């Protein structure tokens, strides 16, 4: 999955987590290279085959980053899952493509999480009854991706979480997520959910590289 994995080389307890986590994610013939955290900003990286494991978020948005913070190791025991939040846009689909493959490699199920507005006049407590048509289409695509990879998956559709950020965090704890996989939306000018999550999520967060648009 990842042919090359860069690990933030930080001395002391902060640095032991990413090294261990990179080892946990070494699913295939992966080359792991330690580099000082600052050096990643200047490195030529092919985001299709590489991942940067680090406790601090780099400035760059063109590489896949697994943000570990103070986590010493990924919790991958039975009962854990990979959480992929999705909305109405394509970011959920992009995240799912990698998240589902990763879950398959780690032998974990996937939980597709979405929080929806309550539809006026609909009494149902089933989230699906409140789902926006576009989100429904995205859900359909996600189902296809998971089926194609033969990965066990469930949907967690929450009606009106206090905020998207809070909804994702609480769902990740409720579902015992080993990590959250997200991609930035293409048309976000400011305050993406990914940035909010990157700021304070205690759950390891895999942020996909931004898609290059012309």
């Amino acid at each position, binding site marked *: 999955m990842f042919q090359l994995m860069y690990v933030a*080389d*930080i*001395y*002391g*307890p*902060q*640095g032991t987590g990413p090294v261990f986590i990179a080892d946990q994610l070494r699913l295939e013939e992966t080359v792991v290279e*330690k580099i*000082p*955290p*600052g*050096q990643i900003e200047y490195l030529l990286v092919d985001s299709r085959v590489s991942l940067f494991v680090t406790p601090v978020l780099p400035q760059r948005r063109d590489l896949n980053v697994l943000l570990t913070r*103070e*986590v010493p190791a990924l*919790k991958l025991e039975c009962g854990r899952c990979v959480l992929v939040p999705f909305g109405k846009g394509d970011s959920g689909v992009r995240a799912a493509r990698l998240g589902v493959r990763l879950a398959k490699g780690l032998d974990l199920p996937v939980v597709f999480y979405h929080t929806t507005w309550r539809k006026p006049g609909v009494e149902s407590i089933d989230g699906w009854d409140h789902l926006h048509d576009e989100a429904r289409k995205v859900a359909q695509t996600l189902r296809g991706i998971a089926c194609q990879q033969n990965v066990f998956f469930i949907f967690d559709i929450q009606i009106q979480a206090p905020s998207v950020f*809070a909804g994702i*965090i*609480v769902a990740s*704890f*409720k579902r015992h997520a080993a990590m959250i996989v997200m991609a930035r939306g293409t048309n976000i000018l400011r305050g993406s959910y990914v940035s909010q999550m990157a700021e*304070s*999520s*205690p*759950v*390891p967060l895999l942020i996909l590289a931004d898609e290059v648009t012309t």
Partner: protein
Amino acid sequence: MNQIKLFFLSPYLAMGVVLLMYGVKVASKLSIGRWIHSPMIEGDGWHNVADIGEACVVIATIWFSRLPPSDTFPLGRKNIESIFSVAVSVLLAIMAFKISGTAVISLWNIAHGQVAPLVMSPEVVVWVMGVTLGSALVSGIVSTYQIKVGKRTGHASLVADGKETLSDGLIEITIFLGIVGEYILDAPWLEYPFALIVSVVMVRTAREIGARGLAALLQKSIGIHHERAIKAIVADMYGVASVAQIKTFMVGSAVILIMKVLSRTSTEMSRLLKESMALQIAQYLRQEGFVDGEFFIRFDVPDSDAHRRTVALVCDHRSWRVAHSIQEATHVAISDIAFGEVGRTVLHAVAHKETGEETEEALLALLEEQHVRELVLFAFDRAWNGMHTPSGVWILNGGSENPSVYGLPKV
């Protein structure tokens, strides 16, 4: 469907059914007892009048325990149910000892030929048997309903009263067996061994109810294994460094949990973590048969392990690298470390003399003066790794020659 289920699970409805049962029992036992001149049935009828009073006390207890917490009762008044449970357990124990005592004396008398036969005509016997057996059956059904509702709604008083009703039913079966033994099987001793068994059951029930009530009143922990399990649930969550303190006890049927969690998350994240913890702990407690709970979770930061670290550096033609030995160092960077992160860092030039020994002396003096805990070098003699300087500074092999690995900015 849920509305109907909720209706039948109402503790007030359960107690209404109990009152109705005792009303019917009192009316039938008193009227039939007087009609057939049976002091035994009439006496049991008066016993049931006392049970009506007890049922009213249970209703009052439930109402009182359901009053919301206030400034003067911050944890509510649910312990009133525990007081009631202890009272019921004492009454049950007294009743059990009375029954077993009577049974032993009666068996002794039978063994010595001093039998006091029941005086009833055959027509009366049928009525007495019908009333006692019917009463026992109704007691069994109603007590099962009462206990189920009590457990589901978390009313210990309802459960205790249900168990007391069940004991009443067992006593009625004993009376029934006594009559059958004397009038049908010609074995007047038959009821007494059964009475002994019933008294043992009653003592066990009393112990169980009393122990639970006392545990709540004395604020006993809900169990070390439960506390360990809750700790494990919380410690398994990302963002939690450890659980520093956990205390549990019961107030009525509600589990009170006081916990201190060490975590470095932000205030908002702590709130979300708390919410998630509460959900998972509640789920665990429900699985373990607890029906209600109130959690007081507070967050604190773990020990920062604040200390000073020194990286020995060599400045060579304006390029910097980590020194291979103390003698080689031209500078040292002394950093304040907290939570494993590098904070304020100060660069000191080391007086570089001709011989290494003087450099070492100057550097060690500086480290002592600056209260440094560890000194990082690169690729020095491995035998040194983990050793101390004379002033107690750890010498560590950093594993990289690049100063930025140690969190040092470009000089």
